[in-house]
């Protein structure tokens, strides 16, 4: 198989685009399409300061490098969740990969530790909150990323969600016809009020495989280990389902997502964004009196008091609505 541009031996075959590229032309194609997505969705303005949520995985590290390459002032934020053990120190491996990339790019990396912020690591939160671990992971990441972007004076928060992440989320929302979430899903979430920062997903049109090829061909060292808590996750099952569809009918994933974006106004009109209030405790945006993160802090503090006071008493815990964890940013 030959490269479509130079006719040399191809390194990457892209059935969804009915084409193939050699190493040099693949990197050129990837960067060109990255710039096109950024421009099309008006993700950044000249002079914007960008905070990139990095996990040490392929998507976020590729994104960080690409943003720096287009001359944006892009700094990294790593949220250490305290996941892993001696044999697979997952969070430590992710942090190492992020630190290495920060050094190569010459950009600062801020590390925020969930244990220091909440009094418990994410695996400990599972026991305290009696919620699935991915739910606590997503909640803490969303809150801390927004807070750090605000406190650091950044204009935009960028995350490494790719096409497969977006498709998996879209499919889950379609399965339940969750109009609120369908209305909310977008490559760009504009700033709402003074405290909910603009969020962008510049890799949303690249498949996981395309991003992986980019990192391998450009020599980016990433953490290849999967989160030990992601085994059997519904999002992975959905991704595998769509990959089978893609193998039999190349371009299916891209069409599904593109047509959604073309029609997503229907959902926005049906379910306009909920009115934002501000948390009575931390003053961050929420739709309730007290935000989910402050409720989490309260529950952690209560669990520590129970330990000091003796054996825990049985108590009824109100079920909280499950929310899909933002993919690709576990740490």
């Amino acid at each position, binding site marked *: 198989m030959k490269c479509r541009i130079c006719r040399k031996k191809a390194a990457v075959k892209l059935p969804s685009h009915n084409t193939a590229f050699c190493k040099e032309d693949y990197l050129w194609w990837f960067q060109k399409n990255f710039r096109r997505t950024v421009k099309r969705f008006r993700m950044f303005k000249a002079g914007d300061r960008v905070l990139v949520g990095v996990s040490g995985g392929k998507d976020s590290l590729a994104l960080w490098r690409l943003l720096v390459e287009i001359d944006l002032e892009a700094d990294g934020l790593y949220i250490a969740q305290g996941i892993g053990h001696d044999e697979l120190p997952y969070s430590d491996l992710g942090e190492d990969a992020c630190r290495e990339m920060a050094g190569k790019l010459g950009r600062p990396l801020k590390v925020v530790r969930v244990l220091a912020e909440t009094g418990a690591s994410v695996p400990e939160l599972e026991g305290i909150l009696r919620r699935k671990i991915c739910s606590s992971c997503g909640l803490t990441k969303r809150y801390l990323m927004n807070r750090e972007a605000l406190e650091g004076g950044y204009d935009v928060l960028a995350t490494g969600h790719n096409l497969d992440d977006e498709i998996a989320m879209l499919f889950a929302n379609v399965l339940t016809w969750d109009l609120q979430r369908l209305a909310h899903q977008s490559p760009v979430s504009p700033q709402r009020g003074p405290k909910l920062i603009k969020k962008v997903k510049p890799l949303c049109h690249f498949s*996981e495989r395309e991003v992986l090829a980019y990192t391998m061909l450009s020599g980016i060292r990433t953490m290849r280990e*999967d989160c030990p808590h*992601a085994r059997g996750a519904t999002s992975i099952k959905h991704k595998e389902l769509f*990959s089978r569809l893609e*193998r039999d009918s190349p371009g299916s994933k891209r069409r599904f997502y593109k047509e959604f974006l073309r029609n997503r106004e229907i959902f926005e009109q049906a379910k306009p964004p909920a009115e934002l209030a501000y948390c009575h405790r931390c003053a961050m945006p929420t739709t309730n009196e007290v935000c989910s993160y402050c409720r989490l802090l309260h529950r952690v503090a209560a669990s520590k008091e129970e330990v000091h006071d003796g054996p825990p008493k049985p108590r009824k815990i109100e079920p909280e609505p499950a929310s899909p964890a933002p993919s690709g940013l576990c740490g």
Partner: protein
Amino acid sequence: MKIRYGTERWEKDRRMVVWRILEEREINPETVIVAINGEVVTEDDFAQPGDDVEIVRAISGG
């Protein structure tokens, strides 16, 4: 040739086209990138005896 896929390891002693290596293990080519001796290749390339074949899984989650 030595083949790696995540924590799995196996060997083949004959020349093989990459798509056949994937097919034998029921690996969907849409979910992986393959490197032979560190060089990224397409499913139509051949691996020779003595080569180091790495199959890298693209799908991740969390």
